[in-house]
């Protein structure tokens, strides 16, 4: 895709006959973001309510410790940090895909009912079947996917129009939201609280198993996103323009919906719905990198950073750890509010 150079500094990478022109700013922003992510990851590994010295942590990571210290660092803290990174990145990309596709800064997979649907699925498993953990995961995935599909089908009338998708999504979400409220009302307190904690989205007790399986899914999906994203930029310009440039809008759109939902679904399966990262990360990334459209790599990095930071706060802000989803809701909502303020001021 040819770009118009607005006189900004451009980095040209040459290797043999391939030359890549990169805008300076996004590259610097990505590097700084990556540094911040690493710094925060180190901090998260070093601190926790069980006191460990940096020497112990390093030696545990290099295999020099056994017993509880090894377990705490390698089996508890490390998977949690990796999970926050990978899941956060997945959510950031998922949101970027949706916002670019629906051309709406408020779009994320929650819009098409995915979060509420997966919560309904999980609640049904917890409350009706009283099922084991993997059943809960299956229920959440089935619920989310079924809801997303329902919304897509209901919104389909000779193609899918972004606005109609959002409206139908709101309708279906609200219905499921009421159903969820009622299911929680019908449950016993222990079960209801467990369900609510899951529904808030939590990385507590994340194990290597979940991280590895989730991570593999996410990597595959990210690769598919990279392939599909070539048509994404065109679609951002509008369906008519995109069609005239030869992108087949509906199949491409459907492919992106599937990938976007699957990314969120994977995270939801492993940790419960973590709200707002998919909504906010692409917006922050866009502002930091000052790109016109939605870009995937900065969105992924911002997502990872946000998720990690939110989880760190969630573990340290209260006397006992909170679900990370609660922090992301508060931070994300606050950020959106600030964004609104500045936009409003700019319009004066």
């Amino acid at each position: 895709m040819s770009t118009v150079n607005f006189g900004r500094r451009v980095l040209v990478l040459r290797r043999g006959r391939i030359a890549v022109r990169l805008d300076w700013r996004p590259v610097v922003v990505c590097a700084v973001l990556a540094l911040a992510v690493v710094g925060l990851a180190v901090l998260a590994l070093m601190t926790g309510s069980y006191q460990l010295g940096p020497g112990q942590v390093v030696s545990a990571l290099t295999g020099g410790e056994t017993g509880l210290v090894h377990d705490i660092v390698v089996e508890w803290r490390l998977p949690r940090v990796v999970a926050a990174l990978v899941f956060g990145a997945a959510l950031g990309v998922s949101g970027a895909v949706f916002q670019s596709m629906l051309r709406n800064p408020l779009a994320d997979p929650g819009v098409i009912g995915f979060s509420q649907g997966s919560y309904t699925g999980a609640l049904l498993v917890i409350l009706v079947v009283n099922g084991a953990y993997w059943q809960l995961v299956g229920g959440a995935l089935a619920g989310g996917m079924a809801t997303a599909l329902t919304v897509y089908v209901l919104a389909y009338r000779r193609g899918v129009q972004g606005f109609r998708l959002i409206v139908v999504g709101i309708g279906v979400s609200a219905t499921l939201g009421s159903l969820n409220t009622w299911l929680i009302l019908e449950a016993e307190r222990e079960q209801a609280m467990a369900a609510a904690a899951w529904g808030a989205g939590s990385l507590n007790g994340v194990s290597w198993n979940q991280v590895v399986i989730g991570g593999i899914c996410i990597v595959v999906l990210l690769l598919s996103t990279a392939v599909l994203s070539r048509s994404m930029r065109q679609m951002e310009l509008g369906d008519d323009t995109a069609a005239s440039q030869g992108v087949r809008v509906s199949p491409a759109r459907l492919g992106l919906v599937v990938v976007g939902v699957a990314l969120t679904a994977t995270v939801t399966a492993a940790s419960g719905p973590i709200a707002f990262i998919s909504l906010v990360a692409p917006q922050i990334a866009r502002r930091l990198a000052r790109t016109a459209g939605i870009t995937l790599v900065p969105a992924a990095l911002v997502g990872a950073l946000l998720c990690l930071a939110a989880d760190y706060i969630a573990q340290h802000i209260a006397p006992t750890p909170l679900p990370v989803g609660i922090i992301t809701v508060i931070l994300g909502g606050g950020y959106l509010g600030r964004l609104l303020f500045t936009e409003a001021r700019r319009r004066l």
Partner: protein
Amino acid sequence: MPGPRRRLLGLVAALLVLLALLVLSVMIGSTAIRPSVVWDALFHPSADIDQFAIRDYRLPRTVVGLVVGVALGLSGALIQALTRNPLADPGILGVHAGASFAVTVAVGVLGVRDIRGYMWFAFAGALIVTLMALALGSTRHGRSPVAMVLAGVCVGAVLGGAREALQLTNPDAFDAMRSWNAGSIVGRPLDLVWPILPFLVVALVLALAVSGPLNAMALGDELAAAQGVRLAHTRVLAIIALTLLAGGATAIAGPISFVGLMVPHVARWIAGPHQRWIFAYSVLLAPILLLASDILGRFVMHPREIPVGVVTAFVGAPVLIALVRRKKASGL
């Protein structure tokens, strides 16, 4: 476009349906009580145990359904007219989130346990948060509808997170909130409604006063200003009215979704783009939806009842989706 005659006939029909539902709501319930006992309960009261069921439960819940329905319908019509957004719902401005958060604080932190106590928290929470969302969504140019909705979503989300944190760390608050969150018109004695009623009446009068100017504003601010409409004045009055209506309804019944969103849609579909007619239809159709949902909720899972907030969502969502799928059904 329907003519005025047809619109009037429709309105009369809606009124008749509402009256029929009011009667039905008193006549039938989860226990079978003979019509003659119902009659006696209302007109020849005695200490008969079945008569109490009519006077203490069915009559109040019918009145509450009527009041809450009118308030929700009118507040929905107001916000959709004000924001020119067919998707706006009083809930979107953070009314429910504000009320919910305030009730959680009342229950979890202050130890208020009775609905008589936390009703006022709900009312205050709804008012404060809506005004906050509106202030946040305002520019010096006036209020952009999109910014207001965004602000409502933000405030709602932040408060929702804080509320969840409070609830998950306080099992007692969690328990009490479970039922409040479902939205119900059962178990609200009439003496709970009276103190809220004056606010609703004031709001109703305000709504009627601004219906004309809002009608002019639907065609665009410039055109309305040219017709002598005072834009800022109208907006402030409309906001006060809708906040009182939605806040009052939520204080009494808890968060009931969909009524405020869907009813004005249907009203616009029947009456066309005339605010006064839309208001009139909304005032009648909303309690129809609410009472019908409540009556339905008494029977589908007998002997238990389903909270009306759950039923309205299930009745309302398909209608909304059908409306959206119709071409040009919901343009303002």
